[in-house]
């Protein structure tokens, strides 16, 4: 009995320290989440406007002089996958990777990994990695997004890849994080509005000409999309981690309670037994 009690005590100690760690991680995630959430929420309205604008342009476009508006000859795809830098965030990273595979439907694809987990995952899997300089999702600035967008456009223009898609996790609220896909290039790939009127296309004036305009606005658009995807993903990561750590802390507390009860019972049983033995000895 005594040795059993010692084991229980040890186990309680180890659970207690695990609980402290998960609690601390939860607090860190909470404070980071607040910042990331504010940023993501500030971006959303502007970003919606940006996407609608590009969608309208793509939809109404009748001009195929720019490489970005033509369908590419290459059918190779490249996915930009924004995941987290660390684990311990529940299903946050794995959900996204599973979603990417689901959408890829078994086809080969190259990757621009953003975030350490994304890089490690696709490196291990042996996917072709186009750009590997964005391993830390936490430290990427808008300027990095611009340079990434430029490289992506270059890779598209040379015809190495025919399709670019962005995968990230959308932050809807604390409890609903949704994996999303946004087609980036060519503009033909855009999700079209399901509207019968869309057969009627308006003529758009481009100034000075369509090629120059698309040449300038497409890299910028991609940079914006990357940046907002990144902000959303960061907020999602912290939210996922907070939730995961919250439940880990709760589990630890529950285990501690049960073990505490067991320990006290065992202690009481030990005392009772000792008394019984003493009384029996005195009577004898």
């Amino acid at each position, binding site marked *: 009995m005594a040795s059993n009690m010692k084991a229980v005590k040890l186990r309680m100690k180890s659970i207690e320290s695990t609980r402290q760690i998960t609690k601390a991680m939860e607090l860190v995630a909470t404070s980071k989440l607040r910042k990331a959430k504010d940023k993501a929420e500030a971006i959303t*309205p*502007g970003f919606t406007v*940006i996407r609608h*604008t590009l969608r309208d342009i793509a939809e109404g476009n009748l001009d195929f002089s720019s490489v970005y508006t033509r369908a590419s000859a290459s059918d190779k795809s490249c996915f930009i996958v924004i995941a987290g830098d660390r684990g311990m965030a529940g299903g946050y990273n794995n959900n996204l990777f599973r979603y990417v595979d689901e959408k890829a439907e078994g086809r080969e694809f190259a990757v621009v990994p953003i975030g350490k987990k994304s890089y490690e995952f696709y490196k291990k899997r042996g996917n072709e990695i186009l750009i590997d300089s964005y391993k830390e999702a936490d430290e990427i600035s808008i300027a990095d997004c611009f340079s990434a967008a430029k490289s992506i456009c270059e890779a598209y223009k040379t015809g190495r890849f025919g399709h670019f898609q962005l995968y990230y996790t959308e932050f809807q609220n604390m409890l609903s994080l949704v994996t999303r896909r946004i087609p980036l290039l060519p503009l033909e790939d855009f999700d079209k509005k399901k509207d019968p009127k869309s057969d009627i296309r308006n003529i758009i004036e481009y100034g000075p000409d369509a090629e120059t305009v698309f040449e300038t*606005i497409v890299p910028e658009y991609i940079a914006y999309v990357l940046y907002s995807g990144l902000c959303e993903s960061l907020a999602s990561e912290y939210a996922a981690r907070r939730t995961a750590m919250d439940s880990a802390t709760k589990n630890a507390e529950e285990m501690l309670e049960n073990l505490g009860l067991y320990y006290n019972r065992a202690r009481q049983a030990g005392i009772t037994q000792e008394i019984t033995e003493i009384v029996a000895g005195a009577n004898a």
Partner: protein
Amino acid sequence: MANTFHLQVASVDGLIYDGMVQSVSCRCIDGDRAILAGHTNLCTAVGMGTAKIKFEDDTSRTAACIGGMLSVMNGECRLIVTTWEWSDEIDVNRAEKAKERAEERLASKKLSEREYKIAIAKLNRALVRLSSCKVKQ
């Protein structure tokens, strides 16, 4: 009552302006353009320069506006910018100093191509800020 149209100004920092206006003008890659109500569908890229919005109540506000795109679609005007700073919020002294610093850097000759580009970009930004403040005065 003057003709108005719906304008949205958006950047990565969020939605800057959303409302009805009489006119908006800004520097595009092929020169200054002004949009009035009833403009045809248009799509163009924004350069570096001063933008001016004339609101419904005849007041107007200028801003330093750098990079992005301008689109008019079915009467809806959207201006998507990389940088947008209202002139009345620009710190003139700071811009003045940034301009001097950039000029100093350009004057020293030992600059790599990258450094040179950064210095030029900084100088341009400072100049745009300063000029947008002067338009207002």
